[in-house]
């Protein structure tokens, strides 16, 4: 079962700050994970209520295989007893992807469609804004808008302070929250320098019954009493689709990309990250805090958008 696999993975890894980016907690295959809505609908149509969808022999085989795997896992645990700190180099160069978001503030008009789309995609309550749009004032009084999702810091303070390692970095650079482990102490909310974490104070709003069970990559519906936050729409990004905020931006000011292949894109165009960011003097928020955020901003005050 999921909990046993978790214990196997963790019980001898004392100082763990990231875990493998699998959804092994639920036995969800890659296709189900992607087309979770479609497949769960299919599964509902297929299964007869009250009947197992697999035969007894298959079940016994599966249980036996699981027991063997469990024993093997326990035996192989010694290799996993490694001490990992929050500051450790996570060898992200060897990953397949390193997701980034780029906000071109020359085009942002503060319409908050990104916020609305994110809330719709994740069925969030009205007061939870996983991407917030701040109205900021520059040094000469110019007003500009700053959309701020979770910065997915490489050296994340939230990961460092979580007492149960409920929040962790995946290999593709995204900080996730496992709401089955979160004890709701809100220490991560205190430690986040960007105010990017949100607490599920009350019951989650109702979600459609076709949604699959929540995972850290798509924590919907959220667990009451735990912390939720922007997860870079991994359920889109990992399968070649753009996050909700990128698709919804009416001014095409948001891009999603991958540092490894050095490309980012929005629904209209694709560009090369390193050239674009260098040419346009991209910056990150609170660089002095050494958090290594993965969200870049091109300075501007909305001067380029036209209606």
């Amino acid at each position: 079962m999921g909990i046993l696999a978790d214990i196997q993975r963790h019980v001898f890894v004392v100082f763990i700050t990231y875990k493998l980016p699998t959804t092994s907690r639920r036995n969800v295959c890659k296709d189900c994970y992607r087309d979770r809505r479609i497949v769960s609908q299919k599964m509902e149509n297929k299964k007869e209520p009250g009947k197992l969808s697999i035969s007894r022999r298959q079940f016994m085989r599966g249980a036996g295989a699981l027991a063997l795997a469990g024993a093997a896992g326990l035996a192989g645990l010694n290799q996993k007893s490694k001490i990992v700190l929050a500051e450790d180099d996570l060898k992200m160069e060897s990953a397949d992807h390193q997701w980034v978001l780029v906000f071109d503030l020359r085009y942002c008009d503060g319409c908050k469609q990104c916020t609305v789309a994110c809330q719709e995609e994740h069925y969030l309550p009205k007061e939870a804004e996983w991407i917030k749009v701040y109205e900021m004032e520059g040094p000469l009084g110019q007003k500009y808008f700053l959309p701020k999702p979770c910065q997915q810091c490489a050296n994340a303070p939230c990961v460092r302070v979580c007492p149960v390692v409920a929040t962790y970095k995946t290999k593709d650079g995204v900080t996730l929250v496992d709401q089955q482990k979160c004890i709701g102490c809100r220490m991560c909310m205190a430690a986040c320098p960007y105010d990017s974490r949100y607490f599920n104070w009350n019951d989650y709003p109702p979600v459609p019954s076709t949604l699959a069970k929540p995972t850290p990559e798509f924590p919907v519906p959220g667990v009451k009493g735990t912390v939720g936050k922007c997860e870079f729409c991994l359920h889109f990004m990992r399968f070649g689709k753009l996050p909700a905020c990128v698709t919804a931006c009416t001014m095409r000011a948001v891009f999603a990309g991958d540092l490894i292949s050095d490309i980012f894109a929005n629904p209209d165009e694709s560009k090369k990250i390193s050239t674009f960011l260098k040419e346009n003097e991209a910056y990150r928020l609170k660089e002095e805090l050494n958090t290594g955020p993965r969200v870049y901003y091109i300075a501007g005050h909305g001067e380029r958008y036209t209606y």
Partner: protein
Amino acid sequence: MKLNFKGLLVSVVMVLLLGLWFFAGSLPVAAAQAKSDLTLTYEIQTDRQGNESLVLLAKLKRADGYPLSEREILYFETTDLYGSARVSIGSATTSAVGVAALKYETRQPGEHQFTVLYGGDETTEFAVTNATLGLQNLPAMTELSPPVGMEKISYWSMLGVGAVVLVIWSLLAGVFFGTIVGIRRGSKGQ
């Protein structure tokens, strides 16, 4: 009046020849355009400070081998990250020997699909070339998650504090059990 038929014929022919010459001059030069030949290679160059960079070299020459200089070459790369697309990665101008050089950065060694494009001008044809280059020995890019530098300090201070905690726990256990044992033993020695 006697008409100078010979003179008239000569002037008409001359007018016709003149018109033909002008006419021929206004004909599009397509017929006279040269084909151009565009190839793409790469190399790793080192500048005077010793910094390496990977450069995509596009060689543009006429079909007869004459190198074309001062022409703009557009570079594209084909990516399949969010669906297949040709992403513009920059442009460069050919040098006197007909070679355009564009610095290119990537973290992924191996095959990359490039497209180079020359728009053509009055004398030379438009040319586009697709090339798949296997890039090796890439110069290093900025680290994605550079080590913060506090790792050793954090590690050893955690171990140190853990050792202190264990010492304190053993002292407390010693006091508790030592008291029980000591006082019980003391009562026996009466």
